[in-house]
């Protein structure tokens, strides 16, 4: 039987200040035991707010979050027993060594001395940190610090691990190592919720993912399914010098069976094609008359899914 580890129901968060900001506008999510779930969206989409509420660091305006069946607003201290968090920033205890960071984290969660020591040594080994156990966080590189943070977050054997933008600020090599570490967690049966604005990361790591923007879930499902239903399309972005008189071109391209949609953008034209064969030359021929300056082709990916759903680029 699959059981739900994280249940987020109609979650809203509104910041009432001079400017009223709706950070979350009714988010519903359910995470099953053992899955790696990605929350993909641009900066400001509501990813971190969702994690903050689920990890008891922020109070929702309305809605509920249950972690392992425990309401995080009603019983935050109990819920925290089930939660592991790797925040966006390095929050390692700078006064303690790597080993002590793990050891005392275990003590915070009620482990006895022997248990805490054994668990810390086991984690040092698992995360290949044994040689660095006496180093202080200030002496570690970004990638290593991130590894210690992941080790620390799972030290008390949480039911669910939250990773907030885990690869932010990491070099490509450290990022790959971090991905490997997260994938390894699958063996331990830990449920993982990670937020990211990197398409590749969401695609590589997640069993299922939710694309969110403006505090709402736009699409939800396994990455492949999302790509099949929304994004098995290639996007051609054209930069044109002349923007007048494009309508006949739009109509002409729209009439083709292999073109899904065509729209006029501030830079020129965006063509979303069902397949690429034969479309490219025709697009170029049509666009040359309008002073074609640049052409960007985005192959089918989560990026194209995102563009389809929101009409804008993830990195904009």
């Amino acid at each position, binding site marked *: 039987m699959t059981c739900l580890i994280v249940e987020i129901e109609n979650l809203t968060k509104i910041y009432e200040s001079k400017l009223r900001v709706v950070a979350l506008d009714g988010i519903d999510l359910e995470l099953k035991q053992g899955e790696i779930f990605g929350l993909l969206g641009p900066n400001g989409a509501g990813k971190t707010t969702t994690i903050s509420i689920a990890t008891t660091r922020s109070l929702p305006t309305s809605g509920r979050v249950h972690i392992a069946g425990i309401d995080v607003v009603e019983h935050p201290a109990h819920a925290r027993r089930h939660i592991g968090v790797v925040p966006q920033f390095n929050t390692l205890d700078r006064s303690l060594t790597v080993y002590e960071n793990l050891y005392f984290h275990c*003590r915070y969660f009620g482990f006895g001395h022997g248990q805490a020591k054994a668990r810390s040594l086991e984690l040092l080994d698992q995360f290949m940190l044994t040689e660095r156990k006496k180093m202080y966080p200030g002496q570690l590189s970004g990638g290593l610090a991130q590894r210690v943070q992941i080790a620390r977050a799972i030290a008390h054997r949480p039911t669910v691990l939250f990773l907030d933008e885990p690869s932010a600020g990491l070099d490509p090599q450290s990022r790959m190592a971090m991905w490997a570490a997260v994938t390894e967690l699958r063996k331990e049966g830990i449920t993982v919720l990670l937020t990211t604005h990197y398409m590749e990361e969401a695609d590589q790591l997640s069993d299922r993912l939710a694309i969110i923007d403006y505090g709402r879930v736009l699409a939800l499902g396994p990455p492949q399914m999302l790509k099949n239903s929304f994004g098995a399309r290639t996007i051609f972005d054209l930069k044109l010098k002349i923007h007048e008189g494009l309508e006949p071109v739009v109509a002409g391209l729209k009439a083709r069976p292999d073109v899904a949609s065509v729209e006029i953008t501030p830079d020129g034209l965006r063509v979303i094609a069902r397949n690429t064969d034969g479309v490219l030359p025709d697009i170029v021929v049509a666009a040359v008359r309008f002073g074609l300056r640049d052409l960007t082709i985005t192959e089918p990916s989560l990026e194209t899914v995102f563009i389809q759903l929101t009409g804008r680029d993830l990195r904009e």
Partner: protein
Amino acid sequence: MNSEPEIRGQGSEISRPSGGENGRGSRIFLKPFLGLFLRDLRVLGRELAPFILRVGMQPLLFLFVFTFILPRMGSGNPMAVGGAVDFGTILLPGLMAVAIMFSGIAAVALPLSSEFGITREIDDRVMCPLPLWAVALEKVCFSALQSIMGALLVIPMAYYIPAHPVVAHVHNWFLLALVLVLASLLAGSLGLVIGSRVAPKHIGLVFSIIVVPITFLGCVYYPWAQLDKIRWLQFAVLFNPIVYMSEGLRASVTPGVAHMPWWAILVALVFFTAALGRWGLKGFVGRVLS
């Protein structure tokens, strides 16, 4: 009434909470609390020498200058009050109070300020399976331990340094213990208020405009009773919690010097600890939760 949440998950590792957040089931919070305390002990143990220097330097110099150098200069002690009583005897409880207060601020306000600010270390600490108020309470309790150590450190200095012997006489050890503990908790609570309610960039300013004035006007260098010649000031300083720390220690360590009645001191210490503690805890929780 049972307010336990419904357990919807079925995983074997999912444990049923044994009580609410407040009070009931508080035994399960004991171990995390102890864990935080052990962590702080570890860090203090590693930095014992800087700790002793930080806490001991001010009373050491104070005693050296005012009770060793000045009396030997022959011109009489310019800070002697009341003639009959030696300045060292007046200074001992006052300096213990200052050590308590500075330890409290150094142990809570300064670390909290940086943990909330640049280092964000607080983010992990508040993810302990403890109510947030208990995380703040641990800080106050640990700072109290440091304050007591700081206060006790002053005693050997006051014994060896002054040119004229300090007349100390503890006739009520229970009162001394009670005053030490209450004064230390009060200092920690004050530290919590400053650490959680003052923006990190203003911490230095707070020292100049709050900490230094309340020390100088805290009956540290003179007994409260001697302020009777300046009635308005004698009344005004009653709002200063440091006064009760100094007077409480005066009542228990150097009872020969005029001091406030012990019951008034205890009532005031409890009142200020409760008021500042509450304000500080609320500030802490407000700072952590967004």
